[in-house]
Each structure stands twice: as structure tokens, then as C-alpha cells.
């Protein structure tokens, strides 16, 4: 076996020999948002690259199950963009950026059809159109899907589209720093190839961050290892603003048992297809918490209800609730939920066509993220764009199921287009060698302290802290204690050690994941402390009510001199024609449907 190749020592690194590439647009992240951005940016003759820390097609998008929400109206003809907009704003508890939600609801049907043009094959209605299924807090059956594997369909379609475009793809490259020029504009990025650890610099006019969320900050999570918040942390460190970062979604139904699969997602499609939730007394407890929407209430409500049932000692043996779909014919369950059937059978020895199974809340999604312009996804750093889970604006305090797959398509495309337009308007920026030198030293430092802390242990301690003090239930007291623990952990993490060579060394990779997550963990806690109320995903026992004045603010965070600074920004008010939609308790399409039915009734 060869050791230390390339050498871990700094003296062996010559800045002039670092592999360097030049691109008009560099997209960081190869999930749905990144690939859609790259497709948009490569429509012309621009030089476009995608950098991914995994192999192509493996990104977290692949794990999305239930579907992509779009008001195609194939099943419920009364659906329309304004109803989708209404549902999205309402479930976001009105701290979403209205313009983002408006663009989203209007454009997402076209983005779904575009996937069909590129080869995606969604399940069909009897009339031969794209089938749509019901989902929590959507007024109509709205989610286009392929069984319970919609994310895979989406990423595979985009993956095969992008490899046939004029795009260079760099697989298994970790980005550790964004580079800026003298004026503070984006100039490129620094990273390394995971395969052998050699460094690489990309000089770029524009960068699109599409790196996803940071569900790995928590112990019980539905997220893959990749969701370590790289993009948000990279951007935050060079001056980009974060917003509403305290809003972390806990999906109501994750697997609970056996321990190895704890947190693994159980799609909302199970409830969409008719699955019912029971407590240990065999009561359908959702009838108490939300008599109208019941099992298909919004995720924040269902997750909290399961948590409360356990507090009241009506939970299942492993601290969850029973989910039951066995009243449906076995062949229907297998056809509509094939992944769930297989997942429970092979990993938990449970046949979901015959018996109920345990579920409990699991960390799922981050609504907050990098603050971006609704039209262009531009951040406050010139040349830097962000789309998908890493960005903030669409989901407010709670994301609707099926809205993230639409999010990545609509805003991935817009970010790619805007980054391309920007790149065409500027010259290549000048890199600052000192930034690269500093970064080389920083990323190699863990090799020079063999007695330091183990990165894997730092990771589990961080997850323990975030879960205990800043999880589904929070209070001023728990958050303050969490902050203290996190600060101690941060100091210890400055001394993380790496053993072995730079060649495919997961210990080394974990160092950067831990650093990003500690930074974002602090941002989550500081945001949660500032938001002295309960709203959507944020549930504070010391402020249990949703407060009208808090509904008028977003919390924006910046990184200044090594400190997180939180400030309030007013939520952009809706123009009158949109605000009017909310005068009724019912969504516009539901009102129209009722009127139509009344007319038909009167006519007959």
C-alpha cells in the first residue's frame, strides 16, 4: 500500500502547480437544483461546470419519495396556481417571500412537463395524463409521482439530460472555500479531489450554490450523509446573509425500529394513499389535533401531535405512533408504495400490507438558508447565486410536501439563467493568491495534530447537542444551554485530527462537515432564540403562541469578525391582488369548486 500520496505536508504544495480551471458558471452541487441550473446555464456557448462531492445521480434528491407538487389540474380540474400559492403561504405561516411563492406556483407546472419531455415517466391517470396524488395541506390532489420514487425519477432525468449538454462534471470534489476578488465579488472556489486528495482551484465569473440542507446536524434524520450544509456555511463565511435558519422541518413519519434505520423517511405518500395514524390506545389522535385535515394536516402539526401523544404516554414501544395502510389491498400498496414495502420488509422484517408499523418525527428539511432575490436567486455577494434547499424564501416556517422537488426545478433554472447573464456581463475576476495559500494551510492542518479530537466523535456530539437543545421542542433555557455546549465543542473541534493519507480519507472529509455544521448549528440556535414565539416548525414551550407581530419579521444573520449577528427584517408585504386571496378561509380553487358545484346543482 502506498501511504501519503500526495504528501500531506504543506511544503510539498506549490501554488503554481495547483490544478486550475476557468469557467463562466460553476455550479456546486449535483442534486436537482444544481443539475437544473447547469442545464439552464449551458443553453448558450458559455463554459459551465458542475462540482459534486458525490458521484452523479447520488445526491439527496434521489431520496425524495412522494412527488412534485404542481397545479396541473389533471385529477382535480379546479386546481390552479393561485390555490397552490395560497396553500404554500398559509402552511409557511406567512413569513415566506410572497414573490418567491408566486413565481413558484406559476412556473412549476411547466417545469414538470419539461421533465416529461426529457424522458421522465410519471404514473398516469386513466385518461393518459400525469397522475396526481393528495398530500398534506394541499387543497387538491397535486403531486405528480412515480410510485414512491419520484426523487430518483427527477434526478435521473436531469442527470441524463445534463450529460448530453455542454457541461463538464467534476465528481467527488469537495469545495472547502469560496474565493473572492479585491472588490468582494465571486472569483472562484478552492477544493480537493476525494479520490487522491489533490487540490483544485476553479476561477469562475459566477457560482451557483445548490448544496442542499443540513439535516445531518441532528441525530435522527432522513437526510443522507451529504446534507452537511456546505453551501450555506461557505457563503456565510464570505459575507452572504442567512435567513429564517431556525426553521428546521421535522417530518412526522420516520422509521423508528430497528436502531440502524432510525430516522429513515416513511413517505407522506403513505398517508396520501390513505394510511391512518394511531396511538397505543388505538385512537386516531389526528382527529383531535386537526379534525378537518386529519392525517393530511401540515407536517409541523402532525409531527407535534405524535410528540405530544408520547409526552402523554400514549406512544408506541419505541416512542412513536402506529401508521397503518393494511386496510388497502396488498397489490395496491405494492403498486403505489413499492419502496416502502421493500424498505420495511428488508430492513425491519415488517410486511406493511399486513400490519401497522411504528413511525416518529425525523429531521427532514431546512426551510431557512441563504437569503436570495426571488427573481434571480442572487445573494448579496456579487456573482453568487443559491437555489434549492440551501436557499431561503419559498417555504416560510413550514414546507409543504412536494414543494421541494418543484422548488429545485423552478429556482435551479432561474439561478442558472441569472448566473449566466451575470457571467456574460463581467470579465474573469482576479484571484487573490493569499486566500489560496491560507486555505491550503487550513485544510492540511488536521494532518499535523495526530493527538487531536476524532472527527466522527465530534460529529456525534454535535448531533446530540442539536437534538437535545434545538430539536422539535425548544425553550429559551434549552437553547441557551445548547449554545454553551456548542461553543465548547467548537473549541475542541479546532483541534480535530486526521490519520492516514489524503487519498479517499473519510476522516478528513468529515472535518469539513463538522466545521460547517457547528457554524450552522449556532445560527439555528441564535435564530430560534431571537424568534420568541411558536410558528410552523419552531415550537417554543416558553412562547407557545404564534404572535402577530412576529409574523411581520424574518431573522437575517450575518457573519462579522467571527461572530454571528442577528437582525430583524420586515417580511415583504403582499400586493393587494394577492392579499385578497386570503380574505376567505378557503383556498381560491376550493371556493370556485363550491360555486361550480352549486351552479350545477341549481341547473339540474
Amino acid at each position, binding site marked *: 500500500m502506498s501511504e501519503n500520496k500526495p504528501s500531506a505536508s504543506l511544503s510539498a504544495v506549490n501554488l503554481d502547480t495547483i490544478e486550475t480551471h476557468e469557467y463562466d458558471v460553476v455550479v456546486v452541487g449535483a442534486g436537482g437544483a444544481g443539475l437544473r441550473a447547469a442545464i439552464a446555464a449551458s443553453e448558450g456557448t458559455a463554459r459551465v461546470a458542475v462540482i459534486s462531492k458525490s458521484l452523479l445521480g447520488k445526491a439527496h434528491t434521489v431520496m425524495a419519495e412522494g412527488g412534485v407538487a404542481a397545479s396541473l389540474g389533471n385529477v382535480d380540474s379546479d386546481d390552479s396556481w393561485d390555490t397552490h400559492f395560497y396553500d404554500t403561504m398559509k402552511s409557511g405561516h406567512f413569513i415566506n417571500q410572497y414573490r418567491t411563492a408566486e413565481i413558484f406556483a406559476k412556473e412549476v407546472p411547466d417545469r414538470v412537463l419539461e421533465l416529461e419531455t426529457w424522458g421522465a415517466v410519471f404514473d398516469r391517470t386513466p385518461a393518459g395524463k400525469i397522475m396526481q396524488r393528495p398530500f398534506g395541506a394541499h387543497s387538491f390532489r397535486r403531486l405528480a409521482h412515480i410510485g414512491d420514487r419520484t426523487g430518483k425519477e427527477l434526478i435521473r432525468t436531469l442527470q441524463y439530460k445534463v450529460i448530453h449538454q455542454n457541461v463538464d462534471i467534476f465528481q467527488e470534489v469537495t469545495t472547502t472555500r469560496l474565493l473572492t476578488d479585491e472588490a468582494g465579488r465571486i472569483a472562484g472556489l478552492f477544493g480537493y479531489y476525494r479520490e487522491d486528495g489533490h487540490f483544485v482551484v476553479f476561477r469562475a465569473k459566477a457560482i451557483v450554490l445548490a448544496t442542499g440542507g443540513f439535516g445531518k446536524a441532528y441525530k435522527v434524520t432522513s437526510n443522507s450523509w451529504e446534507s452537511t450544509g456546505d453551501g450555506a456555511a461557505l457563503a456565510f463565511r464570505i459575507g452572504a446573509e442567512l435567513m429564517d435558519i431556525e426553521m428546521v422541518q421535522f417530518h412526522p413519519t420516520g422509521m423508528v425500529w430497528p436502531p440502524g434505520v432510525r430516522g429513515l423517511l416513511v413517505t407522506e405518500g403513505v398517508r396520501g394513499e390513505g394510511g391512518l395514524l394511531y396511538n397505543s390506545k388505538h385512537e386516531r389522535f389526528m382527529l383531535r389535533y386537526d379534525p378537518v385535515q386529519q392525517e393530511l394536516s401540515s407536517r409541523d402539526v402532525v409531527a407535534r401531535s405524535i410528540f405530544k401523544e408520547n409526552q402523554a404516554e400514549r406512544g408506541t414501544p419505541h416512542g412513536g405512533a402506529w401508521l397503518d395502510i393494511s386496510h388497502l389491498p396488498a397489490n395496491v400498496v405494492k403498486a403505489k408504495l413499492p419502496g416502502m414495502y*421493500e424498505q420495511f420488509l428488508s430492513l425491519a422484517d415488517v410486511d406493511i400490507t399486513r400490519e401497522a408499523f411504528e413511525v416518529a418525527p425525523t429531521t427532514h428539511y431546512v426551510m431557512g438558508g441563504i437569503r436570495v432575490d426571488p427573481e434571480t436567486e442572487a445573494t448579496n455577494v456579487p456573482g453568487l447565486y443559491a437555489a434549492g434547499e440551501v436557499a431561503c424564501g419559498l417555504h416560510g416556517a413550514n414546507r409543504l410536501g412536494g414543494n421541494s422537488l418543484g422548488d429545485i426545478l423552478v429556482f435551479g433554472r432561474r439561478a442558472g439563467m441569472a448566473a449566466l447573464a451575470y457571467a456574460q456581463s463581467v470579465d474573469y475576476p482576479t484571484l487573490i493568491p493569499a486566500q489560496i495559500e491560507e486555505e491550503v494551510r487550513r485544510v492540511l492542518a488536521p494532518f499535523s495534530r495526530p493527538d487531536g479530537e476524532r472527527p466522527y466523535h465530534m460529529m456525534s456530539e454535535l448531533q446530540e447537542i442539536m437534538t437535545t437543545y434545538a430539536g422539535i421542542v425548544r425553550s429559551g433555557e434549552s437553547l441557551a444551554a445548547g449554545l454553551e455546549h456548542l461553543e465548547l465543542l467548537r473549541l475542541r473541534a479546532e483541534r480535530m485530527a486526521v490519520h492516514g493519507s489524503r487519498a479517499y480519507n*473519510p476522516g478528513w472529509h468529515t472535518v469539513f462537515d463538522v466545521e460547517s455544521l457547528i457554524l450552522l448549528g449556532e445560527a439555528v440556535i441564535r435564530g430560534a432564540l431571537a424568534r420568541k414565539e411558536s410558528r410552523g416548525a419552531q415550537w417554543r414551550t416558553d412562547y407557545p403562541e404564534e404572535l402577530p407581530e412576529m409574523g411581520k419579521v424574518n431573522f437575517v444573520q450575518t457573519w462579522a469578525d467571527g461572530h454571528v449577528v442577528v437582525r430583524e427584517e420586515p417580511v415583504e408585504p403582499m400586493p393587494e391582488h394577492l392579499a385578497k386571496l386570503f380574505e376567505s378561509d378557503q383556498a381560491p380553487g376550493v371556493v370556485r369548486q363550491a360555486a361550480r358545484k352549486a351552479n350545477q346543482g341549481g341547473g339540474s
Partner: protein
Amino acid sequence: MSEEMVLSVFRGDQTGGREEEFHVPLETGMVVLDALHYIQAEHAPDLAVRWNCKAAHCGSCSAEINGRPKLLCKTRLDQYVGQVVHVRPMHAFPLIKDLVTDVSSNYRAAKQIPAFSPRTPAPFTMYQRDVDRVQEFHQCIECFLCQDTCHVLRNHNARDRYFGPRMMAKIAEWEMHPMDTQDRREFLKDVAGLPMCNVTRCCVEVCPEHIVITDNAIIPLKERVADLYWDPIRAIFRRFQRSSTSSQPSSTITS
């Protein structure tokens, strides 16, 4: 449960290597990937293993467990109680380090496949019964276990001459799409190496998504190619046709 398992894990790179033994406490429902994570955290932090979702959705953690190509995240450890669990990298691909192999040949092959090109833009009118058979191929998670077990690739190292079962399923997916207009038969025969498959069905046995690659993708593709090239009447017909289409080069193959 306090049972202890012994894992013998390959450590090494292109220059050589050997299996190393590790002891791992067995927990209820544990999979082999859990055991490898335990080894990373407690004994060998630089143990290289590729994984992403740990839910059998992404197909990253392919390896060979006691000689069988499997997903590390879907293989329960309790089935090996009383045995040493040997974990080795996929044999058909060049080794990078430990359990990580270079699977880039798959991506190079994928790039060459003439892309889906529909008659019209969506929305399409397609019925469930028409898409059922292509949806089977959409289940593929690109774990490349079928490529690993395919003897054309594994024993004859013919990655440059045969694209392998995964890519045959991908091509079948587009070929059988009701709206597709491409003709990939010449490509299948001359570039993708379809004739090299001699239908031993090994790929079907290892597919974690239970895709019946040989019967449902490869054999129908072979029939299409045979129709074009070895049907005597069509062959004569084709001779006339070719004179008018011979100016169409291999440009349909994206480089």
C-alpha cells in the same frame, strides 16, 4: 444482544492490499454498512467506503460480501452470525482505495447513448399499461452491481466493448418509450456491444431493484437488432434504404 461479529475488510489500493479483521458488536437490525461506520469511528478513520443515503435509494455502497455483489446498506449482518464476514470492493472495476472503485466507465458509456427524443414536447398522452414496462427500468438505482457480476465485464475486462446490463436497461427505457423517435439499433450492435451478452442472467440475480434486465431489456433489444440485421427480407430492403440514408453519420452519438 451482545453478540460480536468479525468483519474481514479489504484495505489497499492499486499497489496491493489485504483483508484486515475488525470486531464489531451486533445490534438489532444492523446492516454491514453500520458495521463499517463503527469501524471508521472506533478503529480505522481512513477506511474508504462510498455511501450516501443508507436507504437503498442511491446505489453508492456496492461491494462484495462473502463473494456476492450486494448493497452494504441493505445487507443485514445477523444473517452471518457464526461466520466471518468478508467485505471486498467490486471486482469488475479498477480499485481506488479499500472498498471504493473507479466506476467512471459507466458514466462515459452513458454519455454516448443517443438521448431520448420525443415526437412532440409534453404533455404526452400515455396510458399506464403502455408505460408499465419502461417504468420497470426507471427503478434502477445505478449501483452497478449488474455490471460487477456480468462476466463479459468481470472476467473478460471488456468495459470498452460492452456497455453492460445497466446501460442496456437504460437504452431499453428510451427505446420502449412510447414517444421516442430515435433508432438505436445500429448503435446497440456496433458501439454498445449488445451481441456480447450471452444471456446468462447473472445480472438479474444481483439486481437490488429486482429488474429483470435480461428478459425484459436485453432480449427484446437483441430481437430489435436481429430484425434489422438478420431478417433476410429486411436485409434486402435495408440495402435499398441505406443508399438513401448513408449520408447520416454516427452524429447521433453524442461525444
